[in-house]
């Protein structure tokens, strides 16, 4: 479970997030929607402390994952990022073979048992619904795969180290409709085991894949609701205006 309490976030003097409190349940898919610059990606990146890498940022409030404040001084950031995988908008496989891309995280974590690694790579590629398509290309460069396959490879790479949470920042926006549909199918399957938070510009994608949706605007969480409710009868008029395309 991810819980945020009164989160304020600043890039220098600019306040990107304003007093955001929300709870994301385990084994659910939560989607963040909103116009560009609304703060949804900034909010997502808080959960594995990616924003720490940007100079001049400041955070107020609490971000609790499994009951622990991940911004507490005692938190080991490497361990945190192992537990909270991330998939980005553009597929970013390493310049290595398909096999080594997935094995990378295991090797970095000190695992040397070849059989264990081989089994884990196969298991993870299957979980990412990619194994059947690449089983004869495991030693080929990851760059030889299609965009959609590369993105599923990145998901497999994130899954190999057994995270409990998967963050996805517009994971299908660079993909064609068939690849997008495969990623969406995958998200549905993965939520049985993982908690997933996804940022998307595509409102219909949010509707299709998520259990709950948060609508952000100008750094504020305007509405956070069950996806079914959000897309049929949102509580706020401003949400309705956004999802119906009346503005934004």
């Amino acid at each position, binding site marked *: 479970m991810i819980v945020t309490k009164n989160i304020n976030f600043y890039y220098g003097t600019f306040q990107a997030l304003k007093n955001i409190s929300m709870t994301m349940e385990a084994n659910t898919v939560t989607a963040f929607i909103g116009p560009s610059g609304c703060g949804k990606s900034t909010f997502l990146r808080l959960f594995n402390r990616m924003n720490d890498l940007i100079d001049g940022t400041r955070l107020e409030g609490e971000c609790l994952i499994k009951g622990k404040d991940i911004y507490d001084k005692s938190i080991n950031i490497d361990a945190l990022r192992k537990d909270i995988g991330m998939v980005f908008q553009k597929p970013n496989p390493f310049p290595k073979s398909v096999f080594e891309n997935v094995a990378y995280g295991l090797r970095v974590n000190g695992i040397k048992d070849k059989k264990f690694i081989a089994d884990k790579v196969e298991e993870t590629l299957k979980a990412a619904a990619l194994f059947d398509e690449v089983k004869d290309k495991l030693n080929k460069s990851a760059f030889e795969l299609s965009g959609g396959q590369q993105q599923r490879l990145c998901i497999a790479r994130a899954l190999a180290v057994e995270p409990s949470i998967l963050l996805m920042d517009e994971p299908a926006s660079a993909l064609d409709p068939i690849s997008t549909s495969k990623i969406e*199918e995958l998200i549905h399957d993965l939520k049985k085991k993982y908690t997933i938070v996804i940022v998307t510009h595509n409102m219909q994608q949010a*509707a*299709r894949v998520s259990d709950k949706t948060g609508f952000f605007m100008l750094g504020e969480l305007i509405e956070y609701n069950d996806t*079914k409710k959000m*897309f*049929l009868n949102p509580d706020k008029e401003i949400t309705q205006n956004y999802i119906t395309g009346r503005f934004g």
Partner: protein
Amino acid sequence: MKYNEKEMKFLRDEVNEMWKLVISQIEKTKKALLTNDVELALEIVSLEKKVDAYELRLDSNCEHYIALYNPVAIDLRLVLSIMKISITLERIADYAAGVARYVLEAECQPFTDKMKESLRLEKMFDALLSMMTTSLVSFNSENVKNASKILAKDKGIDEIYHSSINLLSEQIGKDSTDARCGLEMMMVIRKLERIGDHCSNIVEEIVFYIEAKVLKHKGKREI
């Protein structure tokens, strides 16, 4: 199966269950009316709420399907058809319950065997049941080749209905003391005729779903 296909299958399964329940309501109504079975009539009336619940559930599930999955082409036509078919099935079940109430409440003598025969009630029910079951098969097999045969049965039902008007008005003319009962009988037959019309509407929805053809309000139905 993709997740949106699973959701669609769920809608299909649900409308199938509702459809079968309404067919069983018509079967029971036939027996209750023809044998003056009061207990069965009570059962029909109590099951009406179950049909209503199906309609509400399908309404809500179809709304969610449209809102979340943005169906297009045949998927959109299917969801729209399911919504309309469920409304129609609910109306059919209302008429069946109306006939059952006649069995429960009418102060008149039950239909005599001779009346039943001359009003061709059994034939009317059999035609309705045939329309309902054949249209369900068409819906599930996505095949409209039987559509014109199903619609032709409605013409047969209309013919029985019109001849009933003549028959009952003749009888009322002969013996006006029993006019009220004659009119009540007429209302029962009218309900069966309306069920036939609704069955035709269901067929129109199936043709719209499968072939994207609109048959509504066309004097001559061309399939």
